[in-house]
């Protein structure tokens, strides 16, 4: 007999444990006299501060049309600097302003540093993912090729990448390859992540293809399909379905690994977090927020892959 668990009771116990952990964190912060300042966090995600419009030179402010138009008359007597679209006036008629002083402001929402970091991490992950899949697919195919040159190249690449730490690879890409090929940081970061993840995807692709019974390839070839037609129409679609779960795990790793490129000064989510911490003195809030944002990215990805798996399960 299997033991019957009362779902209500055990789910309640689960909730109590979670609450206990939350209280533990709170109590721990109390014991070190930590003052939580959650209210400071949102502005670093999305900033509502007005964008300031600054005078390009020294001059005198003239407000016209009852405050609908503002201009700065330069001391030099050149053409005035005219501002017509703005939400708030930051200088009065007749004020003397110097170059760089704010004369008006536009109210708009902008991404704060953490918002930008999130966007950078997303861009970094998506671009690397696309390249990693291409690299992984072709390396995986080369890995099972009958051609010894292709096969050995694939094995060498996979072993080199899997045998060295990603952090070291990022440095090599940035300082060596990046310098030789004159890559900017973002490109070097994407290249390192794509080459790293590609090696793992290659192994997933290889095992996926090898898990398809050989009779499938034989049936396809016996119908007159060539190797490429058989691969693209028969083998890869089946392998794709089987490799979705490990593939999803690899994609999630990619998102998390992308935090390492902050060492080459790409302002991704992690680096943005570090910068904000140094200006807010709210390290706990910032790092919890950063962790939560990573969770949102990886969670969304898991969810999307699960939906895809359900859709593809139609033929099972």
């Amino acid at each position, binding site marked *: 007999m299997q033991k019957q668990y009362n779902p209500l009771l055990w789910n309640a116990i689960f909730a109590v444990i979670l609450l206990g952990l939350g209280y533990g964190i709170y109590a721990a912060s109390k014991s070190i006299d930590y003052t939580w300042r959650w209210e400071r966090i949102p502005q670093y995600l999305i900033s509502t501060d007005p964008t300031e419009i600054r005078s390009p030179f020294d001059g005198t402010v003239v407000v016209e049309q009852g405050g609908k138009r503002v201009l700065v008359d330069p001391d030099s007597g050149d053409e005035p600097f005219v501002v017509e679209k703005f939400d708030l006036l930051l200088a009065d008629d007749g004020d003397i302003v110097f170059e760089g002083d704010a004369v008006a402001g536009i109210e708009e929402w902008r991404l704060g540093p953490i918002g930008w970091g999130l966007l950078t991490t997303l861009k970094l992950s998506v671009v690397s993912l696309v390249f990693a899949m291409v690299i992984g697919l072709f390396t995986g195919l080369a890995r099972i090729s009958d051609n010894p040159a292709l096969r050995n190249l694939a094995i060498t690449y996979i072993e080199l990448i899997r045998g060295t730490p990603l952090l070291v690879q990022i440095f090599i890409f940035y300082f060596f390859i990046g310098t030789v090929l004159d890559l900017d940081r973002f490109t070097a970061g994407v290249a390192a992540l794509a080459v790293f993840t590609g090696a793992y995807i290659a192994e997933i692709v290889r095992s996926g293809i090898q898990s398809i*019974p050989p009779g*499938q390839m034989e049936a*396809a070839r*016996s119908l*007159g*399909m060539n190797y490429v037609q058989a691969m693209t129409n028969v083998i890869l679609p089946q392998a794709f379905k089987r490799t979705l779960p490990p593939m999803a795990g690899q994609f999630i790793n990619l998102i998390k690994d992308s935090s390492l490129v902050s060492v080459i000064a790409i302002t991704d989510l992690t680096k943005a977090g570090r910068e904000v911490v140094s200006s807010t003195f709210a390290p706990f809030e910032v790092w919890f927020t950063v962790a939560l944002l990573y969770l949102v990215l990886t969670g969304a990805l898991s969810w999307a892959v699960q939906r895809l798996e359900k859709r593809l399960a139609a033929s099972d």
Partner: protein
Amino acid sequence: MTEHFDPSIIVARDVDKIYPNGCHALKRVSLEINRGEVVVIIGPSGSGKSTFLRTLNQLETISDGDIRIDGISLTDKRTDINKVREEVGMVFQSFNLFPHKTALQNVMLAPMKVLKKSREQAEKKGRELLYKVGLSERMHSYPSQLSGGQQQRVAIARALAMMPKIMLFDEPTSALDPEMVGEVLDVMKSLASDGMTMVVVTHEMGFAREVADRVVFMEEGELVFEERPERFFESTSNERLQRFLGQVL
């Protein structure tokens, strides 16, 4: 291509097959098959029946000898093997249907990708063929939703969709529950009466007796004996065949 009419469509001469592991699976096998002929190959397990069948569409390359399909030599380096395979359909013991495609999609795939038929043409032909094998109702089912007998009939329709000149069957009923053997054999019989050239490896002696023009006995990689079916089963001249028939009949 021959200018005048050549009655033989398959000519195998002194075919040797040695697998990379050293297994000598075919030893100087020679067989000539005419257009429209139905040849049944029998023999104990491991005697090289599957290997021989698979050399006929080059799923296995041969080590020595020559095979000609409709006048085209398979050992000639200039031969486009994919073109030959278009003309030679094959049905496997384990069906090998494409599990991610419905019955109709299984039948339509190769005509669209290989013969570059339009979707409409391929679908029309696919529906016709599935009707012919009695599966009009199950057209949109996936292989996993079909019985073994139904799957094997889809596999036959899939091979026929390429309009082959020759059909090879490797123990097409061996993986089936007994009650489903008949439905597959019926499809094969009607194919034979349509004049299809067929090479069939099977243990169904009734089918051999009824449908075959010739029965071939293989043992240990050798083609031991061939005869018309009515004489084949009564034959007492060959001791090895006697021993085998004594075991299976």
